[in-house]
């Protein structure tokens, strides 16, 4: 009896544990490279994002651009940013001339994080267990990556944001939507400082 023909569009399962180990290692590399500069180290952030992007590509996470993904992403961005504005107001103390370069870096880092967390990792966990586990695992990983950079007190807020981004992933069916939301929220943060 011959083997069944491969089904078009079905990607092979990615092992979850090595994927999480690789993610933890990427965070460790970022922290190690950054030293005291922490989140303010562009080279460390670039290396981190490059590693995540490479892992996402290895696992077959594809960039899908659609109106639905864009709409979900924008709505999610509003949901995330509004409480921050209500809490902090708009301050704009940072120099506008530095915004473009910073924005490019932010798009790369946040985009790579989403390609991995709500792309490759989400798919792997969903295939291994279920969609609920995928939302939770991705949210916990998202929150955990911020702890070495900002401290434990950011865990609750970043976990909540991770859940919202996971919901966006579910609603849109692609990591592009949470990427749009994540990038938008980060860019908006510039104007809240």
């Amino acid at each position, binding site marked *: 009896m011959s083997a069944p023909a491969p089904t078009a569009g*079905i990607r*092979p399962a990615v*092992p979850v544990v*090595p994927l999480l*180990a*690789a993610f*933890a*290692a*990427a*965070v*460790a*590399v970022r922290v*190690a*490279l950054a*030293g*005291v*500069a*922490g*989140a*303010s*180290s*562009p080279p460390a*952030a670039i290396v981190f994002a490059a590693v995540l992007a490479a*892992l996402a590509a*290895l*696992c077959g996470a594809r960039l899908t651009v659609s109106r639905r993904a864009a709409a979900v992403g924008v709505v999610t961005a509003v*949901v*995330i940013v509004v*409480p*921050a504005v209500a809490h*902090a*107001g708009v*301050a704009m*103390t*940072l120099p506008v001339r530095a915004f473009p370069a*910073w924005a490019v*870096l*932010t798009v790369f*880092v*946040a985009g790579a994080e989403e390609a991995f967390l709500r792309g490759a990792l989400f798919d792997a966990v969903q295939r291994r267990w279920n969609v609920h586990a995928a939302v939770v695992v991705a949210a916990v990983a998202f929150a955990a990556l911020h702890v070495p*950079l*900002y*401290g434990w*007190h*950011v865990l*609750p*807020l970043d*976990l*909540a*944001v991770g*859940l*919202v*981004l*996971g919901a966006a992933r*579910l609603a849109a069916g692609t990591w592009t939507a949470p990427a749009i939301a994540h990038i938008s*929220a980060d860019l908006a*943060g*510039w104007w*809240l*400082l």
Partner: protein
Amino acid sequence: MQWTLAGVAALMLAWLLAPAAVPIYDGPGFADEPYRYVHPPAGAKATPPPTTAKRTLTVNAQGFSAAGYSNSAEQGPQIVLYVPSGALQAPVGAKSIDVSETPVAPSAPLPSDGTIVGNVYRVAATSTGPVQVVGKDAAHQPTLQMRAPSAQQPGPVFEHRVGNRWQQYPTIRVGQDIYQATAPVFGDWALVKVSSKSSSSGGVNAGLLAGGIAVLVIAGLIIAIRLVRSRRQA
């Protein structure tokens, strides 16, 4: 839909419970300008003088303040005062409260438990009469954030001058070199590096880097091998 509702609910709860000024989500941090000292130590970079933060807060008919931030103007403010709504009370009839944080050089008496890092900031609130902090707990009292001159760890702690001595306040680290404490009183505040604590050098952590790269390579190989095998079996 259930995860959307759960996520939004979690977000609202997190913001209600968050410390007064949690870093907004993430994004690569923006490099701060060199620390501006009132009296620069030997070897410090030449910088403009540090700035005074000022903000006018409106008050309601009972004299309770509106919420607001008062930030100094450095890139990466060296001091931020957050006043929650109702935290301050001015005399009845006052229309506003002026809050300010003025940098001054450390002067005697200095803390007995360590060394002041950076400037002392004189925090004040003025109105038509005395202004009081009336918030009863940390969530309803003013919060101070200060940027330390460096991110070396262990980090400094907030101390407030009380007469001829300095009193420590519970301090949390909210950024690489930014520290936060509840400030239930006005007056002189400073970051103090407590004595007898060794500090990290602050450069690249070679051991962590090597370990991270090793795990990354191994995990990457495992993932690649498993994917290749899965494709062959498909």
